[in-house]
């Protein structure tokens, strides 16, 4: 991929970041000395944009990795049931209203839910010492449905306040974002991203098939497990930061492949960057369109993502881009 393309893309993403920082229901000038504007910028806008960017990075990169290790162009973090497991755990806290660890209760339980769901999917996807892509995929779909239906049962049994907050969480809500969770999010998402980037060659080999990957010198099961852990770290952290946000993991890697080709060395970092920028734009639209009312960013990404997904289904050849 030419350096010019990468530079242009990086600059575009930075531009989007700045736009979503200074635009919104209340536009903020970067040079303003007004204490109210400064307060909006540093206490509300900046952490929210950082959280959106981090979640987008995590989901974009996770989608790129999952589509490779499962050799399925329709894979994203939701397919593996990790997001549903994570959201289920968070919904459990929201509906019950029991916050044992205070403010950290929801993100930590969401992360624990993601880890538990990953382990469960891994157990069901494991056969005779191998982590099999087809089994992983089917186990993820099955468990995802199970988590989702139990979550809906909880919502239907809950009080109106618990239900409202849970529904917001399910659709991805960035309005609660603050600085407290950002360092923890950075650590988990950066760890997952670094593992994925260092194993990009292995991911390319896995895309060719297990036998060719073996012939090229990779320990297939070890590599698949490592990349699966990376995805679990990133997805778990993203759900705990802002709930379940759909379609970034599915569409961004496909769009990115149009520009970069299929080499994971480029697809992973560029999907991360574009995923971050896309969620920032979606959040900007969500908080500006019907201001002062906010539309959860997850709804905006799904509104843009669903038609694109259907378009992909009609034109399967684009998967080969």
């Amino acid at each position, binding site marked *: 991929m030419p350096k010019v393309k990468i530079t242009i893309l990086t600059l575009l993403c930075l531009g989007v970041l700045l736009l979503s920082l200074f635009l919104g229901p209340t536009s903020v000038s970067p040079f303003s000395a007004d204490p109210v504007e400064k307060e909006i910028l540093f206490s509300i806008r900046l952490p929210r944009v950082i959280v959106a960017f981090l979640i987008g990075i995590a989901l974009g990169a996770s989608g790129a990795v999952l589509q490779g290790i499962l*050799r399925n162009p329709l894979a994203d973090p939701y397919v593996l049931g990790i997001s549903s497991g994570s959201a289920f755990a968070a919904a459990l806290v929201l509906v019950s209203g029991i916050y044992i660890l205070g403010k950290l209760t929801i993100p930590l339980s969401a992360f624990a839910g993601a880890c538990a769901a990953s382990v469960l999917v891994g157990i069901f996807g494991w056969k005779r010492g191998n982590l099999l892509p087809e089994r992983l995929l089917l186990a993820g779909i099955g468990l995802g449905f199970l988590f989702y239906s139990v979550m809906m049962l909880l919502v239907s049994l809950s009080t109106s306040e618990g239900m409202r907050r849970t529904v917001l969480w399910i659709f991805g809500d960035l309005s609660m974002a603050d600085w407290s969770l950002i360092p923890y999010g950075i650590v988990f998402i950066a760890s997952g991203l670094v593992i994925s980037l260092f194993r990009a*060659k292995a991911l390319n080999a896995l*895309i060719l098939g297990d036998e060719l990957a073996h*012939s*090229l*010198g990779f320990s297939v099961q070890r590599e698949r497990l490592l990349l699966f852990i990376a995805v679990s770290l990133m997805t778990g952290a993203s759900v705990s930061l802002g709930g379940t946000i759909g379609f970034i993991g599915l569409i961004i890697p496909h769009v990115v492949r149009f520009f970069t080709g*299929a080499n994971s060395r480029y697809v992973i970092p560029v999907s991360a960057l574009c995923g971050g920028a896309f969620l920032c734009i979606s959040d900007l639209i969500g908080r500006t369109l019907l201001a002062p009312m906010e539309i959860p960013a997850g709804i905006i990404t799904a509104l843009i993502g669903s038609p694109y997904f259907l378009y992909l289904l009609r034109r399967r050849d684009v998967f080969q881009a």
Partner: protein
Amino acid sequence: MSSRPDIPILELSGVGFSYDRNEPFLSNLSFSVQNGQFIGLLGANGSGKSTILKLATGILKPSTGRIHLWGKSLHEYRQKDKAKLISYLPQFLDMQIPFTVSELVSMGLYPYDILPEMTADEALELVGLREKSGTPLTQLSGGERRRAFIAMTLVQGAGLVLLDEPLVNLDIKFQIEIYRLLKDLQMKKNISILMALHDINFAMQFETVMLIKHGTILGSGKPEEVLTKDRIKDAFDVDVTVHKQDSGGMAIRYTNGPK
């Protein structure tokens, strides 16, 4: 890899394997591949050709016996080091993978930290795909895709190349082209090739063939010595006549083919 002529490149001794615990698929299989040999592994569907190649690469683990690569037990090699000595092209390849020709061929360099002897460009030149290096694999014909995968296998620079039915589903023109290419490379680079195939007439082109049935070697040596009427009947369950041609080669004709 420097090779000592007295050590076989690949040696299987008393190898047994079973997919199902109650039913052995291979038992007590022994053979070796010497430096610079080009062997055709011939047998009917389900005869064990692919299983033998997968055992030789370490994808499958033998239940009994030993497999040595350059005199050292196969499982003692680090995966990456083994990939520099032995490359393998499976029979079933995903033809819809999204890479370009040059991206695919470059993957053959993955086991190396420094560039090996053959570059991706050189391999593309050898298989006649240099002009198409930037083309997505999905836009190539079946024969071109096979050649691209073979180029990747060659770039790996291994002294032993295992190919599982690389000619299957190809027109006779491409079959001959690929065979000649491999033969040429084997001579020039002094590599050893073990190639699975099931076309008896095509096997006549090889200097050495190994005929197998249910994982047992029925015969090994020159095709005209190994591929007798009786052995072919045993291995393929068809009646044939073997004809010597004016050119010196042999031709097999089926006498109880489909009516």
